């Protein structure tokens, strides 16, 4: 009986491909969510800082101080 290595390769290859792609999708999606989570946490933190700082300032002009620390970092 001929060996049909092509079929063997197809079977193993397909299995590896499908499962590998699925695994990669899971990993990617997890990274996406991690980054999104971090970005959200960061903006929440920055918003809180700015508000807290503003409430401590006596300034009524509404202009933020020009010190870099009080400005929200660029995204």
């Amino acid at each position, binding site marked *: 009986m001929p*060996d049909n290595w092509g079929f063997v390769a197809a079977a193993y290859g397909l*299995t590896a491909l499908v499962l590998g792609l699925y695994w990669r999708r899971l990993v990617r999606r997890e990274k996406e969510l991690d980054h999104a989570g971090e970005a959200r946490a960061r903006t929440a933190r920055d918003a809180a800082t700015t508000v807290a700082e503003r409430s401590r300032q006596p300034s009524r002009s509404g202009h933020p101080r020009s010190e870099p620390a009080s400005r929200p970092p660029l995204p």
Partner: protein
Amino acid sequence: MVRTLGWLSAAALALGLVMAFGVAPREVSQGNVQRIMYVHPPLAWVAYLAFGVVAAASIAYLVRRAPGADRLAHASAEVGVLFTGLAIATGSIWGKPTWGTWWTWDARLTSVAILFVMYLGYLLLRGTVEDRERAARYCAVLGIVAALDMPLVHFSVYWWRTLHQPPSLMKPGGFTGSAAILWPLLVNLAAFTVLYAYLVAKRVRLLRAEAEALA
């Protein structure tokens, strides 16, 4: 924990691969095509295992309404449908050179095909029902019905094929091989099971993160 599973499955799969080609001999009657039988039965086994987990998690969800149970069912269904599809595909790829045909309605293939369609229905229901809590409940019921149905499917399909019919070429049970064939099979069986556990764990974690992101 999940990472350990990941490394473990990678190692086990590697070992399984080596054994399937290094340890296992060239089969006498079928030739090297028989080596597909070191992935096909493990895939089929996981297909059924995954469905069992869907059923168990579904029952747990209906009884306790824990979102974790629902996530487990969802994840197991997703991973399960992949394994089932691959089981069918690899079985078909093996069948072409061996039986001469891509498909035949023999008892086992038919049962796995029905299992596949049930998985698809489950995932379709999940995707179609918009409210998440409702989707969880409905899918739980479907999971239970489908799982309880599988033994009935087995018997009916088996009787359908074997009564008044000559037995199919591929006998379901009966292992008569040597250790050189048994061990690669067992290792791959374990490896694919660990891989299943790893993928489900990752998927559950992802589902939980997605749920929290929406909250």
